[in-house]
C-alpha cells in the first residue's frame, strides 16, 4: 500500500469522528430513542401475549423480552453503522473529501480510520440501549456482556464499511438513502432479531443464512443469554469474514474515488 503514515492517518480520522460525535448530542439521542421505542411498544406488547410458559420453547427457552433485547441492540448498531456511510457523502458535499484525497497518506488508511470511528459511535449507541434494556430482561449472563460488545463492534465495523463502499460509488444523498432504505429492512427482519430462525420456509432460511447480520445477532444473543440457532463458532467466523470482506471492499473502492 502506498502513502505515508498509515497509523497516523488512521488515528486522525478516528479522532475526527469521535470529536464530531461528541459535539452532536441530538444525533445520539435521536438514534437511541428509536430502538427503545421498538423494545417498549413492540417488545412489551408481544411479551405480554407470550407470557405463558408454554411459549418459552418457541423462543429457545427464553421469555420474549429477553429473546428480543439482543436483537434490538443489534438492530440499532446495524442501522447506525450502515447509515454512517452517508458521512462520506457529507464530506463530498462540504469539500472535506478533497482534503483527504489530495493527502499523501494512504487513502485506505483514511477510510478505514473513518469507519473505525463511526463504528465506535454506533457501538456507543448500542451500549446505551443495552443498558436501558437490561432491567427488562431476565437471567442475562453479565460475564457475556464484554464479549458481546466486542462482537458487536466487529459487526458494526463491517456494516459501516459496507455503507462506505456504497457511498463511495454514489454522488447524491438521495441515491444513497434509496439503496440503503431498500436493503435495510430486509436485513433487519431476516436476521433473527425479532423471531427465531428455525422452522421457517426454505426460501426464507436461505436468505437468512446469506444475511451477514444473522451471525452477529445469533452470537450476541448466545453470549448474553446462552441460546443459539447457529453454532457460535460458526457465527464468529462468519462475522469476522463478512467484516473483513466489507472493509477490504470499501478500501478498494475508495482508492479509486475521484472528485
Amino acid at each position, binding site marked *: 500500500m502506498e*502513502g505515508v503514515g498509515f497509523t497516523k492517518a488512521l488515528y486522525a480520522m478516528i479522532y475526527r469522528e469521535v470529536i464530531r460525535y461528541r459535539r452532536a448530542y441530538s444525533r445520539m439521542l435521536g438514534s437511541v430513542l428509536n430502538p427503545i421505542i421498538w423494545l417498549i411498544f413492540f417488545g412489551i406488547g408481544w411479551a405480554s401475549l407470550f407470557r405463558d410458559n408454554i411459549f418459552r420453547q418457541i423462543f429457545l427457552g427464553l421469555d420474549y423480552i429477553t429473546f428480543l433485547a439482543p436483537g434490538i441492540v443489534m438492530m440499532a448498531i446495524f442501522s447506525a453503522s450502515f447509515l454512517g456511510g452517508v458521512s462520506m457523502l457529507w464530506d463530498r458535499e462540504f469539500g472535506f473529501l478533497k482534503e483527504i484525497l489530495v493527502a499523501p497518506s494512504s487513502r485506505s488508511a483514511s477510510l478505514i480510520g473513518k469507519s473505525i470511528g463511526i463504528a465506535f459511535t454506533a457501538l456507543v449507541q448500542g451500549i446505551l440501549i443495552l443498558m436501558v434494556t437490561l432491567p427488562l430482561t431476565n437471567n442475562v449472563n453479565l460475564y457475556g456482556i464484554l464479549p458481546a460488545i466486542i462482537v458487536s463492534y466487529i459487526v458494526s465495523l463491517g456494516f459501516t464499511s459496507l455503507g462506505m463502499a456504497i457511498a463511495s460509488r454514489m454522488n447524491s444523498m438521495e441515491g444513497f438513502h434509496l439503496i440503503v432504505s431498500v436493503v435495510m429492512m430486509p436485513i433487519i427482519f431476516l436476521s433473527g432479531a425479532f423471531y427465531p430462525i428455525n422452522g421457517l420456509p426454505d426460501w426464507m432460511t436461505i436468505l437468512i443464512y446469506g444475511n451477514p447480520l444473522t451471525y452477529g445477532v445469533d452470537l450476541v444473543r448466545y453470549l448474553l443469554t446462552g441460546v443459539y440457532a447457529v453454532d457460535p463458532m460458526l457465527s464468529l467466523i462468519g462475522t469476522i469474514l463478512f467484516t473483513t470482506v466489507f472493509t477490504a471492499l470499501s478500501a478498494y473502492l475508495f482508492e479509486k474515488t475521484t472528485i
Partner: protein
Amino acid sequence: MGRKKVIEVLNLTKKFGDFTAVDNVRFDVYEGEIFGFLGPNGAGKTTTINMLITLLKPTSGEAYVAGYNVVKEPYRVRRMIGVVFQDPTIDRYLTGYENMYIHGLIYGLPREKIRNRIDELLKFVDLYEFRDKPVKTYSGGMIRRLEIARSLLHIPKILFLDEPTLGLDPQTRAKIWEYIERLRYEHNVTIFMTTHYMDEAEKLCDRIAIIDHGRIIALDTPENLIKMVGDEVVYVRIDGQPIDIDKLRGINSYIKDVEIRSNQIIFSVSNSSKAIPTILEHLVGLGVDVQEVKYHKPDMGDVFLKLTGRDLRDDEGSWKDMVRTVLRRWR
C-alpha cells in the same frame, strides 16, 4: 533560462464527454515564481489544477509536478504539494486548530512538530485567537486564511491556489494578497494560482498564462503582456491655447509620440509616472495654462479584450457555462 522547472505540462487535454474543458495546454513553471492562470469562469482553470494535483485523470498529454508524473506517481506528487481549493474543504464542526492537527497527521508529520507549526502558522494568518472556535463560526475570509495556513503546515514545495480571493470583500482580498506575497519569501514556496480578477493576476504574478475556452492564448510577464496592447497615454487639457507641436517633442526619453487634438495634447509614453512631472514642468516653462492632466495605463483587462475581443470584466462565463455549473450542483 537556467532556472529549475518545478511544473512541466505537455499538451495536457481534458474532455468531459465530447466537451473539451482543457485543450492541449503546454507550459512550465519555474522554482520560486508565482505563476498565474487568468481567465473567465469556465475557462478550464480548476480542471487544469485538478489534473496537476492528481485528482483528475487527463484525457491526453502529460504533466510533471516536482519531477513526478501526475498519473503514474500520484502519491509522490501529493507529498510535494499544498492545495487551497476553490471551494472550502474544511470540517466546519471542528475548530481551526483541530482541522490543522488532522491535516498534519494525514501528511505524516510528527505530533510535536505539528503543534508548534500550527501556532506559528495561525499567527501568520492572524487567526491565533480563533484557534479553538469551530470553523462554522468563521467568516469566508477567515476560512480562506485558515486554508492557506493549513496548506503550509507540511512545508510544500509547490502551492496551488485556486481563486484564492473569490467572493471576498476588498479588504480581505488585500490581506490575502499580502500573505501570498510574503509566502514565497518567508516560506520559500513556488505558487501556481488561478484567478479571474485581472488586478490580482497583475499584482501578484511573475508570469501569467491567459486561458480562454481551455486554451492558453498568451503567456508572459504582466509587463510584457501589457506592452503588447500599447503604451500608456497622458492627456493634458489646455482648452485650445495655441501651441507649436514641435516644441513638445523630445521633452524626455519616455515620450514616444505626441499629437494635439482640439483641446488636449496626447502623449504616448512608456512610463507615465516618470514622464508626467517633466511634461508639466516643460509646459509651464512654455507659459501654457494646464487645465487638467489624465492618464490611462493599459491593464490586463485591455490585454484580454485585445486577445479575445471580449471584456473580461463583463465576462462571467457564457450562459452555457452557467447552465453546466447549475446542473453540476444538482447532480
